[in-house]
Every structure is written in structure tokens, then in C-alpha cells.
């Protein structure tokens, strides 16, 4: 058990460290798609006018040879179906579409810094120096991409995944859906490479003619003069932005990483609880042998040193195994993590490089510190046992003293938590506050266990004498299993807290979506044709959402249109709104705006504050009153809503349409869409379907959290089980006595179970308010600070009862094993053992 828990702790910690560092490496990597030193990018800011090849060549001819074109497309990979009757039949290999990227390698190779020609007479000097930088490796690759046979570059881990997804380990070449073979795969380890396959742009267009020219990379620094000239030369539909958006991304993603780290540390701490108990068990089982050693004259110090050395060796071994397992775990989890990060935060996530030695040192160090600390408690107990000192119960004075200490701890933790929660904004401080809340709960639990148990005892009827005895034994047990009970409390509190948080989030999301999605159908379509025009004679009512991106206080903010009709007024879900009855008329007149929570909290605005914003059509800066703050769950963007009438279709993009009408009219629209070459099945979504898809995505996201909750509970139950096993010998005489009074083995087992479940039940009662508090902190503090939005906390009694049932069930399942084992022993054995 000791090894297992150390390995689990080390594996969990390593996995999280690897995931976090890999992701962070790719953000901070200055390479984009293997192109080094990318300082800026040029992209289209209009959905009507896209970046074209002509834009690119015109700019290059004007002298901007630092621009490198990049085209992208997301595609599945297929393989030729050997069993197919037709040659072109292919089977899909990937579950998640791969990000195919094409780079204009010819232009890249034209950069003088890239090819770096060296005069012949100086070449021997250069050759003498060792060239071993990563950039040289990627330069070689670019050369190969440009001049050699067509190749595609991907991270070795991605290739591993692809090969693993081939049916029956076939080695057919990978192809497009049409069956065209993909270029030969070359692997390259780069932190920047994740779910990406990089190839020359010409190859990309050959395979996927509909790929989008997504951006022009600006390689190297531009002088101020040159940058100005570039800005002037850019046509209206193109914009130049800094590539250092990685800084902004890292803010968003740091909360994700912090969350992961916090979970790993929590798991680590809980594993340490198990270590304490496992070491206790270990030493307990060796007690007789250790006593003989003492009799033979070996000092206690020598014995402790030996035991400690053993623990250290086991920890190092477990760390090594744990690191290896953790890396594999990280690899397993990386597609999910990558997908989550890329979808949530629009960042590129690579596989990253792992320094095994560094990781080993880190994890071993932490594990060693943890396990040495965890060993001190059992060693202390052993010390008493070897010194033959009786485990004298604390005197009344001593009891009062310890009770005071516990109450003091509660006050200190609670006060510290309160101060931080009300005054701090940094995420890490808030996490500490969360930990303090939990610790204060632990203290409160420990201080009140006796009182609570005594209260419960009063409710046990006199006709159940054994239950009464059992509950009193529970009280005695509570004193001996403080650590295990605290572990269970922590697990239960976090369970309740997380579950309530997720449930509240889910409830809020469902309610919000149901309110906001008032139309019958929604269409997601970017570019031509404009669906409002298309829908003209069909009898459906189409409202398009026009979108701009505007700069505001150094950040990019979404400026969206919102219809002002009665239906849409009812649909709006407000977090807070102006008391003014003319809210909507003011909005319609363009005097005021609605902002989402992210905007309000992020920029520190309240209702009736005035903001300076550009007009959606003219761009003229004017003052607008904030009329309402709306809910916008899950969005990482700050948003301003203005009336649809203020927008100009030629200036704004439109990707979303709300459609209302009878089914027959909708059918007409479907036909028109088909005629226009649009796929109604993919683009036209019924509101119910949309809701279902959204909630499915929601549930999928929180599967990991649910899993982790169960794991934490399991670990806590295991910890309790260990504590019980250690205590079994202590309670053996008592159980023997009760059995000798004619109480059946089954009954004594049930009574034992009752004792422990009673402890857990009390812990659950205390965990409930703290869990609710934790939930509140997570929603209103942490979520607020991390994402600038929040939602109402919904406390569901059914949910809490469910958690009670689950927790008690998990504990029962785990501790029933040692109890049954003890119960199976013949009474005569116990009597002989005791006497």
C-alpha cells in the first residue's frame, strides 16, 4: 500500500508537471509552425474580403520580403480501405481533425538570415564550430520541405497516436478523404508542434485546394519606418498584429494550469495521508521484531534511522516508477488537454519536450520531503511503543488545552481566509484562501466531533444498547483517527463544493441558453451569400448578428449587434441592469449599451457608468451608458452589445443568424441554401439540437472533474481503511468481549461499520456548509478573478444527499474488507490472543 500510494502520488504529480510544462513551452515558444522569430502577423479583419495570394505577392513585390504566407486547414486523416471494392474508398483514422499547415518555404528560404550564405574562404572556420542549435534543426527541415521530395513534418508523439489509430496496425499510407496519399511523414521534436502537420504550401493546396490562406507571418523585427510603410501598404481588409498575443493567452491558460496543479497537489497530500497510515501499519506489523531488537541492545535511534532509510529508498524507487507512469499518463491525456486548451483559449499547444532528469529530481524531491514528514508521526508512535510508555489518555487539563488549540486554529484559519477572500485578487492567494477555508473546517470538525457524536447518541433509543455502545466507541475512534477523518472531510468538502459549483454552472447555463435562444433555428455561416438576402422570399424572419472587433483599453473587445424587438428583449439574461424603465428604448436609440460580465468586471465598470466606444458603422468614438450587464458564460472575450440598426453590413462580419418561421417556410429556406451551395444539415441548427449539443459539450468537459472527485473520495476512504486496520488490534479486546456476550459475528461487523460510518456522517455534516462555502468561493472569487464572470450558486439538497450517499457507499466498499476479515476470525482466536 505504501509503494502503491507513493507511486500514485508521484505519477499524478509528474503527469501534471509534464502537461503544464509542455503546454507552457508551446506558448512561450517563439516559433510558429517551425518558423523562428515571428514578431507580427497579418490577417484579414473582414469576413467578406479574405487574405489572398495576390495580397501576398503585391506586398512582397513592394519589398516586404519578411512576409511568409501560411495556409491552414483542419482535416481528418484517412487510410485506404483494404477491404473496399472501390479504389477510392477510404476509412477515417483520426478522431480529432489535424491542423494542417502549409508554409511558403520558398519565401522563407529567401530570407538572408535563413540561408545564411558564407563566403567560401570562410567556410572552413564555420565548419569548425559545432552547429547544434534547435533553430538549425528546424532550418534544415524547412530546406527539406522546400527542395526535397514532398514531406510532412509532425511531432513523434502525434505520429505515434496516428499509427496507434490505424486499424489492425496497417501500414497503408495515410491519405486524404479522396484517397490521395499524403506526403512522407518526417518527425521532429519541437515544443511548438502539437496536433499539427506542417508541409510546403504548394503541397497543402495540392491536397486541399480549399485550404484557407490564414495569415502572413512577419519574420524578424521591422524598423519603425518599415512598419509604418507596411501599415500604409496594407489594404483595408488586412491588419497587422503583434505575435506576442502569447502573453494574453498565458493569462487565460494559467488558471487552467493552476487548477491542474492544485488538483495534483491535493492528490499528493491525500496520498501522504495514506503514507502515514501505511507506515503505521508497516511499523505495527514489525513491532514484535523491533521489540526483540531493542532487547538485543539496538538503540531506538538506530532503529529509526534504519526505518527512515527504508522509507527513503522506497520513495526514490516509487518516484522513478511514478515519473515513468506519469509521462505515459500525460501522453495519454495530452490529446484531451490539447483539445481543451486549444478550444477554450484559442492557443496552439504542442507536445513539448520533457527533461526526464529534471522531472525525476523535482518529483523525487517533493516525494522525499513528503514521505519523510509523513513518517514522523508513525515513528513518534513507535517511539512510545518501544519505550514501553503506556498510551495514557490525556488528563482533563491537557484535553482542555488541546481543545483550545484546535479552536484557536479554527479562528486563525477562518480569519485569514476571510481577509484574503475579501481583499486579495491574485489567483494564487485565492487558492490559498480556499485551502484555509478547508483547514478551518477541519479544525471545526476536530473541535466538535465529541459534541456532535454525543448529540447523535441522544437520538439512539435505549432499546438498541449495542448501537449506543457503538456510537460511544465511535467517539473514542474519532480521537484516534483524526488524520483519516480530516482526509475524508477534505474529500467530502471538495466533492460537495465542486459538485455544487458544476451543478450551479450547469443550471445557470441551461437557464441562460433557454432564455437567450428564442429563435426557432440558428444558422452559422461566414461570408457569402448573406442569408438575410437568401431568406427574402421564404417567409422566415432572419436576424443576423453583425460583429466587429474593436480596441478598448489595450484589449480587443467584441462589438456585437442585438435586435431590439420585444422577443429579444425578453430573451436577454441580465446579471444586473439599470433601474430605468426606458432601458430598451435607450438601447434602441443608441444611447446606451449592454456589456457582458467579462467586460464589466474586467474593466471595472458598473451600471450607469459611461464608456467611450467607436460607432459600429462609422468608427466615431462616442459616449455610451452601460444599461445592463449580461451573462455570457464560458466566453473568454469581453463583449459590448449595440442595436442591430447601428451596424453596417459592409463594415462588419456576420457569422450567425437567428431564424424564425413555420416549418414549411424553413423548408423553403433549406432549399434555397442547397441551391446556393450551402449545406443546411451542417449549418442550420434547430434550437433544441443546439441546446443538446451545448449541454453535451458541457458534460463532457466536466467528466474529468467528476472522475477526480471520485478518485479523491476513494483515496480518502483508503486512508480511513488504513487507519482502521491499524486500530483493529486496539479494538480487538472490545469486540471479543461483545462477541463473548453472544452477539453474532455479523452483528459485530455491522456495528463496526456503523462506528466508522457515523464518523464519516459527522464529517459529512460539517463538510456540507464548508462545501457550500467552497462552492461560493470558487464561483464568486476564483471564477471571477480568473475569467471575469460568475453565476448564481444553486444549492440542491438532492445533490448534497446524493453526495452523502456516494461518499458513504465508497467508504463502505473500502472499509468493509478489513471489517469482514476481522469478523471471519473465530472468537476463540481473539480470546486466546487477548488473554
Amino acid at each position, binding site marked *: 500500500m505504501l509503494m502503491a500510494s507513493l507511486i500514485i502520488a508521484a505519477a499524478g504529480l509528474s503527469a501534471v508537471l509534464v502537461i503544464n510544462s509542455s503546454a507552457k513551452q508551446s506558448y512561450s515558444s517563439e516559433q510558429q509552425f517551425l518558423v523562428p522569430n515571428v514578431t507580427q502577423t497579418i490577417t484579414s479583419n473582414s469576413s467578406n474580403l479574405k487574405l489572398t495570394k495576390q495580397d501576398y505577392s503585391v506586398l512582397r513585390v513592394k519589398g516586404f520580403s519578411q512576409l511568409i504566407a501560411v*495556409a491552414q486547414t483542419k482535416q481528418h486523416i484517412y487510410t485506404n480501405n483494404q477491404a473496399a471494392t472501390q479504389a477510392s474508398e477510404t476509412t477515417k483514422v483520426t478522431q480529432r481533425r489535424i491542423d494542417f499547415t502549409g508554409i511558403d518555404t520558398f519565401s522563407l*528560404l529567401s530570407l538572408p538570415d535563413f540561408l545564411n550564405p558564407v563566403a*567560401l574562404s570562410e567556410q572552413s572556420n564555420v565548419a569548425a564550430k559545432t552547429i547544434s542549435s534547435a533553430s538549425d534543426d528546424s532550418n534544415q527541415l524547412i530546406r527539406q520541405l522546400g527542395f526535397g*521530395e514532398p514531406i510532412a513534418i509532425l511531432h513523434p508523439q502525434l505520429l505515434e497516436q496516428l499509427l496507434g489509430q490505424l486499424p489492425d496496425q496497417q501500414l497503408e499510407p495515410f491519405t486524404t478523404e479522396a484517397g490521395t496519399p499524403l506526403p512522407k511523414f518526417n518527425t521532429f521534436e519541437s515544443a511548438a508542434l502539437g496536433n499539427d502537420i506542417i508541409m510546403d504550401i504548394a503541397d497543402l493546396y495540392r491536397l486541399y*485546394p480549399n485550404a484557407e490562406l490564414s495569415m502572413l507571418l512577419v519574420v524578424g523585427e521591422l524598423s519603425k519606418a*518599415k512598419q509604418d510603410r507596411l501599415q500604409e501598404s496594407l489594404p483595408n481588409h488586412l491588419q497587422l498584429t503583434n505575435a506576442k498575443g502569447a502573453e494574453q493567452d498565458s493569462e487565460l491558460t494559467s488558471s487552467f494550469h493552476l487548477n491542474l496543479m492544485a488538483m495534483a497537489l491535493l492528490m499528493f497530500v491525500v496520498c501522504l495521508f495514506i503514507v502515514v497510515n501505511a507506515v503505521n501499519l508497516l511499523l505495527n506489523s514489525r513491532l514484535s521484531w523491533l521489540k526483540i531488537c531493542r532487547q538485543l541492545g539496538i538503540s531506538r535511534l538506530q532503529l529509526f534511522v534504519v526505518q527512515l532509510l527504508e522509507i527513503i529508498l522506497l520513495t526514490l524507487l516509487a518516484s522513478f516508477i511514478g515519473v515513468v507512469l506519469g509521462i505515459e499518463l500525460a501522453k495519454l491525456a495530452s490529446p484531451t488537454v490539447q483539445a481543451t486548451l486549444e478550444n477554450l483559449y484559442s492557443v496552439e499547444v504542442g507536445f513539448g519536450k520533457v527533461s526526464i532528469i529534471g522531472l525525476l529530481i523535482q518529483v523525487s524531491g517533493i516525494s522525499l520531503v513528503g514521505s519523510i514528514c509523513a513518517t514522523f508521526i508513525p515513528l513518534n508512535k513507535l517511539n512510545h511503543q518501544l519505550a514501553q510508555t503506556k498510551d495514557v489518555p490525556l488528563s482533563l487539563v491537557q484535553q482542555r488545552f488541546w481543545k483550545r488549540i484546535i479552536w484557536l486554529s479554527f479562528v486563525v484559519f477562518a480569519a485569514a481566509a476571510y481577509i484574503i477572500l475579501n481583499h486579495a485578487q491574485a489567483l494564487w492567494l485565492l487558492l490559498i484562501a480556499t485551502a484555509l477555508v478547508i483547514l478551518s473546517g477541519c479544525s471545526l470538525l476536530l473541535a466538535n466531533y465529541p459534541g456532535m457524536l454525543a448529540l447523535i447518541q441522544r437520538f439512539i433509543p435505549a432499546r438498541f444498547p449495542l448501537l449506543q455502545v457503538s456510537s460511544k466507541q465511535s467517539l473514542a475512534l474519532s480521537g484516534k483517527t483524526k488524520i483519516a477523518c480530516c482526509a475524508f472531510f477534505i474529500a467530502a468538502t471538495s466533492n460537495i463544493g465542486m459538485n455544487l459549483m458544476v451543478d450551479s454552472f450547469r443550471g445557470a447555463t441551461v437557464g441562460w441558453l433557454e432564455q437567450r435562444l428564442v429563435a426557432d433555428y440558428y444558422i452559422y455561416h461566414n461570408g457569402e451569400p448573406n442569408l438575410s438576402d437568401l431568406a427574402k422570399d421564404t417567409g422566415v424572419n432572419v436576424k443576423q448578428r453583425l460583429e466587429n472587433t474593436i480596441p478598448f483599453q489595450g484589449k480587443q473587445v467584441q462589438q456585437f449587434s442585438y435586435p431590439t424587438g420585444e422577443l429579444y428583449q425578453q430573451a436577454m439574461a441580465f446579471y444586473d441592469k439599470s433601474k430605468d424603465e426606458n432601458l430598451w428604448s435607450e438601447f434602441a436609440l443608441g444611447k446606451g449599451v449592454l456589456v457582458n460580465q467579462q467586460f464589466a468586471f474586467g474593466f471595472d465598470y458598473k451600471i450607469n457608468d459611461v464608456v467611450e466606444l467607436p460607432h459600429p458603422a462609422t468608427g466615431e468614438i462616442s459616449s455610451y451608458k452601460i444599461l445592463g450587464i449580461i451573462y455570457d458564460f464560458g466566453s473568454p472575450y469581453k463583449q459590448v452589445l449595440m442595436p442591430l440598426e447601428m451596424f453596417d453590413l459592409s463594415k462588419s462580419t456576420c457569422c450567425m443568424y437567428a431564424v424564425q418561421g413555420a416549418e414549411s417556410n424553413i423548408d423553403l429556406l433549406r432549399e434555397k441554401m442547397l441551391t446556393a451551395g450551402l449545406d443546411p444539415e451542417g449549418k442550420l441548427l434547430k434550437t433544441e439540437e443546439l441546446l443538446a449539443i451545448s449541454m453535451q459539450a458541457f458534460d463532457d468537459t466536466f467528466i474529468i472533474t467528476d472522475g477526480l472527485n471520485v478518485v479523491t473520495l476513494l483515496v480518502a476512504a483508503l486512508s480511513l481503511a488504513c487507519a482502521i486496520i491499524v486500530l483493529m488490534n486496539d479494538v480487538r479486546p472490545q469486540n471479543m468481549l461483545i462477541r463473548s456476550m453472544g452477539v453474532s459475528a455479523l452483528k459485530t461487523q455491522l456495528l463496526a461499520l456503523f462506528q466508522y460510518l457515523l464518523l464519516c456522517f459527522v464529517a459529512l455534516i460539517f463538510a456540507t456548509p464548508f462545501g457550500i462555502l467552497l462552492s461560493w468561493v470558487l464561483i464568486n472569487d476564483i471564477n471571477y478573478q480568473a475569467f471575469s464572470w460568475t453565476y448564481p450558486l444553486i444549492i440542491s439538497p438532492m445533490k448534497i444527499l446524493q453526495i452523502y450517499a456516494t461518499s458513504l457507499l465508497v467508504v463502505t466498499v473500502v472499509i468493509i474488507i478489513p471489517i469482514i476479515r476481522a469478523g471471519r476470525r473465530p472468537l476463540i482466536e481473539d480470546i486466546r490472543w487477548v488473554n
Partner: protein
Amino acid sequence: MGKLNKVSRLAVFVIVLALLIVASRALLFAPKSDHLSSSDATATSSQSFGRGFSNTNPELLGEVADPNYKIRFPKDHYSHDSFDIEWWYLTANLQDDEGNVYGLQWTLFRFRNPNVASENQSIASENSISDWSNEHIYMAHASVHSASQHWFSEKFARGNVGNVGNVGNVGVEQTPFKLFIDDWQWSSATTGLLPAQLIFNTKLISTGEEDSKVADHLNVQLNLSNTGSYVLQGKDGYSIKSANSKHASHYYSAPFINVNGTFTISEALTNSTPSNLEKQIAVKGNAWFDQEWTSQLFDQATLGWDWFSLHLDNGDKIMAFRMRLQGQTDYITGTYIESDGSTTMLMPSELELNANELTAVGNKELPLNWQLKIESKGIDVSIKATKKDQWNPASIAYYEGTVAVSGTHKGKGFLELTGY
């Protein structure tokens, strides 16, 4: 003691289990890139899209030079897309007001990859804007030598993107002639090649000095004007390069070009960015322009060639060419161009061209000292490279540099050595 053994046994079990898990994953999922590459190579070679610079497949050879073809201008200044290789080649011997001499070379190469052409036709999408390649690849070299410094740049581009090519309609409309690759431009005011303005920029690769913190960008603006006639090399522009006539090209020169222009040395890589470290140098001199197109120059037998363009002080010009072939004697041809533009084709028997010695440049031994004898014209001259290291360290590297002529006649010119 029994308990201790139990613990150790458990530890061993866990370790073995863990190692088994890891080993099995490694075995199952080891990237089979070797295996993959061999099978994949088979798959891709049937529709290979290699961007090779030469076509070695005789079945896909481009148009072959035709001895009966008549070169006409301005039509033949433009690109001959059905031929595999083509270049527009300018070399210039320049000097500034202080008497410093410079050697300048600017070349645009076009290569045709026949595999691409056939494939593109079968799968090219209707939306031709998305197609990022056609059968043509372009390469350009810019090289400027001063006594101690060498600026050199290389550019690549593909046809059908729009940043390289040859603009101007042949025949019907009067669009002015232009050659360009990115912002390197040869632009003429007329449909003809000359007069023209050549603008390009290049980067310092060798200073010959310890101090590397010098302004390293050179911007070149030249005005080129033709003071003589175009010269058709070989027989009316049909130039044979080997005894068995298997290597031949269409080739003409413009050896009577007058040059004046400006070198601007600065820190910024731009056509016109004033900077504190900007230095302007006025230059003038002579230039020689070649345009050649062929599908028969590169094959298994070609080892390389040595080419000379000489401006004699008396106004005459000489082009001498030695083709080195595997298993054959070197084939030497040339053209003697009088100052009035009349030409004499020189067959191998009519001229002698020999390297006097080999000079070590870097890790190569190069013939930088030649003797040329044209008995019929009374030419017995020594041709020596004016600077040792005039090697162009390009993707395809070669020697291109200024030479001085001495002996029966004096002059200057350019020497090109390939295949060393």
C-alpha cells in the same frame, strides 16, 4: 521477517508490472517511420512532386533547341516556358568616382519541373487562385564584389503566386517589359529589354575585415542602356555545347550595355529607408547581358563549364565557353564580337583556352588564371581573376567574378566556373 519479505515482494511486483506496461507501450507504438517511409515512397513516387532543379527523365524533357528557330525581338526577351531551363543574366564591371572597382552580377533563373505540370492539370481545382504552384520555379542571385567585400543574396519563388515572373504581353499589347522577383526588378520603359532600370538589394557576406559591425545592406539602382546590337551566339542563336550536338541552347547576348547607377550601403534592408549609416556611391561601367534557354544543358554527362565574357579596351568583345563532359574532351566554343556588332562564330579548332594554374580558394582548387588564344584575331591574352574569392555560396554554388585581361589586348570582364 515474513512481513518484510512481503513488502519487498510487493515492491518487486509493482516495479516489474510498471516496466511491463511501459515496455509494451514502447513496443506497440514505436514509430515505424522506416517502414512507413519505404511504403510511402512507393505511394508518392507515382505522383512525385519533387521540386528538383533538373529533369533527368528523358521522357519528360522540355522542348529541345531547334537549329532552324529564328530569334526575334522583343518576343524572345520573354520567357520560353516550354524549355526546361532559362536565365536572364547580367554581369557588370563598374567603378566609382574614386577609382574603386566593383563586379556585379544579377541573374534570374527559371526551372521547369515537368512532373508538376502533368499532375496539376489532373487535380488542379477550378479556383486557380488557390493553386500555389505551377511547373516553374524561379531562383535569383545578386552578387556585388568590391576589393574586400562581397554582398550576395539568393531568392526563390514559384510561378503562379504572383511575386515573380515576366510581365508584359508578347505581341499584341504594348506593355513594358519587366522581370521581377519580389522587389528585385528589371523594368524597361518599352516592350524591349533595354533601356531598363535594375533595382535590387543584397546583404554583406564577407568583409575581409575583423570588424563585422559594418552596415551590411546594399541597395543597387542601375540604369542600363544598350549602345550596340544584340548578338546571337552560335549559329543565329543556336549554340552547340558538345561535339555530338546533344547539348545545345538558344543563346543571345547584349554585350554593349552602358551602366550608371548608385550603390546605397545601409543597415536597413529596404529600398529606400534613410538611415544614419547610409552611404551612397555613384558607379558606372560596362555590362554584359545573356539570355539563354535550353532543355539540354544538364544531363548525366555534364560536369560543368567555364564561361568568359570579355570587354577589350579596343571596343571588341569576346565570349568563350568551355563545356566539360564526362567521357568526352572539353568542348570549347566562342564568339568574337567586333565593336560594330559584327560577329565571328569560333569553333573548337579556332580557339585555345587553357587554365594556367589552379588556385586554392577555401577548400577548392579553382582555375583563376587562363590563357586564351584566337589566332585568326591575333588574340593571345592572359585572363586573371581580379579577386580570389568570388565564389557565390548559393544552393547551387559556382564562381562568378571579375577578371583582368592582359597580353596582346587589355580589358576586363567576367569569369564563370561551374561544376567545381
